């Protein structure tokens, strides 16, 4: 078996050159599909160790929204070895709680409310069983083990189609990462599931219920993407969170958290030969998913009209205009990035017009958010109290029309390209940022795209911009969000 695996290595070793910078990158893939990228930097004494799974809210739907995010929490709960004093004794409690959770769901399905006395009693029973189970639990052993071995930047994150588990370790302790992550990949245990579900509900309240601007963006995005699962919030809908069960989560994990849907990126002071040997030793025998990953085939249709979303809330008033853009690596994406630079930023056309000249806004900016399947180009402005958002919308369109008809000046092009070069080089100073960018580009089709990015930007000609703007920034297909602060509106009158 070992021999077959070694032969099956697909190796790529190159010195990628960008901006005259040599970045030694090595990559290989295990026979079970696990991808590995190593970026060497011997000037530091640490290694950024990151394990990415190509899953997120894009792979969820009604009833399962937020499962990837919930599993991000659960991954810290341990395995059959870590986080337990006796896993077999824990199992009896876990199974009992599953049955109660299932019965709660049946009651809810039949119309019972959360405060129904039967549901309240059953929830109490779950917490009583948890108390019993905890006699066999070693709390947070994974977190503690990483931490006491000098793990920094210890965390995890979830997005639409990528979930990451992160730690930066002293260079002599990278084996700890292989040990823990291979164990989490093979033997995760969903212990303390139902109490963690409550933690996630608290998190959702904190992020969305009590911060209207976040709720506004959640709603705006769900109107921009009408069918594509990018409309699903990564944290999940509250009703879905409160209905999660362990078996539902297990199904999600079986499907997506496998070596053939994962990538390790190591960045820092590391011996790549040893790393390869160790990764093979720890991860090589973990089987692929039984069923191949289901791809997302849904694509957002071309909008047949404009959409307006207006929300009132205790927040700074603002307006956002969104347009659909093609999926990366479509060539127009790069021209749109340059348009972002021309219109956006403090020296961009919109800030100069809306903040400096017209004095209608406190801020104005632009973001070209490219991704797989189709991203968005968004123009945002924060309004001074009393400013009519429709006036701002008109001015934004005036500037869009200029971009559609006249190429930017040479000076503007120089500014934008220098800015993108600087950002790229500046990003190379962070081991962690290099890792995240590699994973992000891999999720969009191939990590080497990260190193082509600045070249593609440099190759954009100013004459390309009007055509790109005209093609995508179409008023009849826009989604507009307006956040109104009633108090500020009154103040302006």
């Amino acid at each position: 078996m070992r021999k077959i695996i070694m032969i099956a290595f697909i190796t790529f070793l190159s010195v990628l050159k960008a901006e005259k910078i040599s970045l030694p990158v090595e990559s290989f893939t295990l026979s079970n599909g696990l991808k590995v990228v190593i970026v060497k930097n011997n000037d530091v004494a640490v290694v950024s160790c990151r394990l990415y799974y190509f899953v997120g809210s894009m792979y969820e739907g009604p009833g399962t929204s937020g499962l990837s995010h919930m599993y991000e929490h659960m991954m810290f709960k341990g395995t059959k070895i870590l986080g337990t004093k006796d896993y077999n004794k824990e199992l009896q409690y876990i199974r009992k709680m599953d049955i109660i959770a299932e019965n709660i769901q049946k009651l809810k399905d039949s119309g019972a409310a959360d405060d129904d006395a039967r549901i309240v009693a059953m929830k109490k029973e779950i917490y009583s069983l948890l108390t019993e189970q905890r006699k066999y639990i070693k709390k947070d052993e994974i977190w503690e083990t990483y931490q006491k071995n000098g793990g920094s930047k210890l965390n995890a994150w979830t997005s639409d189609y990528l979930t990451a588990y992160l730690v930066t370790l002293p260079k002599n302790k990278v084996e700890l990462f292989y040990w823990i992550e291979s164990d989490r990949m093979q033997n995760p245990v969903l212990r303390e599931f139902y109490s963690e579900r409550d933690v996630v509900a608290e998190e959702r309240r904190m992020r969305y219920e009590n911060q209207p601007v976040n709720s506004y963006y959640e709603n705006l995005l769900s109107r921009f993407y009408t069918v594509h699962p990018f409309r699903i919030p990564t944290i999940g809908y509250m009703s879905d969170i409160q209905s999660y069960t362990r078996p539902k989560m297990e199904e999600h994990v079986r499907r997506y958290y496998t070596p053939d849907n994962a990538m390790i990126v190591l960045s820092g002071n590391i011996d790549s030969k040893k790393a390869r040997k160790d990764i093979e030793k720890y991860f090589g025998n973990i089987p692929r998913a039984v069923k191949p990953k289901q791809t997302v085939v849904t694509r957002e249709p071309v909008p047949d009209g404009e959409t307006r979303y207006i929300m009132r809330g205790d927040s700074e008033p603002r307006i956002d205009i969104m347009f659909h853009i093609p999926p990366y690596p479509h060539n127009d994406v790069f021209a749109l990035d340059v348009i972002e630079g021309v219109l956006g930023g403090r020296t961009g056309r919109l800030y100069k017009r809306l903040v400096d000249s017209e004095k209608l806004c406190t801020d104005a900016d632009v973001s070209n958010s490219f991704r797989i399947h189709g991203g968005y180009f968004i123009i945002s402005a924060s309004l001074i109290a009393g400013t009519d958002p429709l006036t701002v919308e008109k001015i934004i369109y005036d500037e869009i029309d200029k971009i559609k008809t006249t190429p930017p000046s040479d000076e503007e092009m120089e500014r934008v390209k220098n800015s993108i070069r600087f950002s790229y080089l500046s990003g190379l100073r962070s081991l962690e940022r290099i890792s995240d960018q590699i994973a992000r580009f891999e999720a969009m089709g191939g990590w080497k795209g990260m190193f082509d990015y600045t070249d593609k930007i440099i190759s954009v000609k100013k004459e390309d911009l009007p055509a790109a703007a005209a093609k995508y920034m179409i008023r009849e297909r826009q989604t507009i969000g307006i956040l109104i602060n009633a108090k500020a509106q009154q103040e302006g009158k």
Partner: protein
Amino acid sequence: MNKYYAYILTAAIVLFCGVQHAGAKSKTAAHPSLLSYEKLDWKIPEGKDTRIILKNGVRLYIAEDKTLPLVSMGVIIKSGSLLDAKGKEGLSSLFAVLMRRGGVNGYSPEMIDDLLARYSINIGMNSNNDSLVFSAEFLSEYSETAFSLIEKMLFNPSFDNKILEKEKSIASEYVKYRFDNPENLLEAAYIKAMYSGSIIAGLADQKSITAVTRKDLVDHHSAVMKNENMIVYISGNFDKKEMTDRLEKIFSANTNKSRVGSDFPSVTINTPNKCLIVDRKISQSYIRMGLPFVKRPHPDYYALSIAGIILGGGGFTSRLGSAIRSDAGLTYSIYSHAESNYTFPGTFYVDFFTKNETSAKAVSLCLDEINKFLKDGITDVELESAKNMLIESLPSYFRSPGDIVSTYARSEYSGNPDNHYTSYPDKIRALSKNEVMAAAKKYIKPENFIYVIVGDSDKVMNIKERDFSFADFSPIIIKPEDIVKY
């Protein structure tokens, strides 16, 4: 666009945080605690190797780093919002903004903006309580342009009146919405509650912002922008000797000999009220329970820091995290923190949020854990783990020449000796269980907690759980809009 909103919009949520495949493992160790590691061949870098005092008295930390064609520079200036006069709160923040955006003698603000943007020279200035930090990052090929502008911005700003009025208007808008986020409101209310009547508790409002004049900025510049008030750090793609000469020249251009002092006023902890509730009709209560602590350097600081890590620091592994978040499922985030303040006494606090209905229960559980902690003490394993967490992660904070110069410059600004970091591991290792618990008992007195809550006061006040009720403290209840004058 504002990166915060971009972040929310892309729905990427950064968060803390089984399904079983039957893969056989072929590991060398049955448990990660049995792994053995090679000794780390790394030493904490010395700051003095990078330190130079220029002929004009400026303290400089400098290091070459030719890995990328970039230069990073910072200037720490003795100033900050502690120097804002009463009635002119916000002056220091406006000063920082105008230093960057207000133009320089000979160049209009618009010309400066365009030049910086054209060559992607990223310059900013931040105002803190007790420091101003000027920062610059740029491609090394544009060093000539960058340094020419930096010199003018530092020593010949024009504080253009038109820009001042614009920035005042933006700042006035900002203050209207700064407390939309309940966490920001809690932070402001907490400072008001712990430092009542002190200059640190002053909050800018539209009136104080409007009161700031160009003359105030000019006077402030004269008072603080003196070479002896500054520590400079720089790293990047340059020749050390040439760069030292260049900086020597730039700072020699500073002829400011003003005798106006810039000493910080005295700030003391003063807590006339036991409980402050800021009434906001939201679904959760944001709660902070605080106690007085010390001004650094102080012999108790490290011991209480370790106690704080075990009690409520260190991510999930703390006792409070275990009990309130993990066991009870009452919050997404809870932590305790021993503040590290060098200019005035800090505080020790516990911070969390939970549903309004469970606020009393959560506080009561916290108090139980804290009392248990004080009564039973800490274990050898907890102590060892907390020490390792502090010591073993050091390589992560000294990665590059840029890290070394900025860390040591900040350390010197705080008044630490040059062996502050090299002696740090030994100081931490030397702490005993008794010393940690002695510090904990000296400062963590549960009966003295000051409670600050942002939440629905009707719900919070009406709950009594496990013998705890906020109503027992006869809280002061205020509206969010009254926080400035509280």
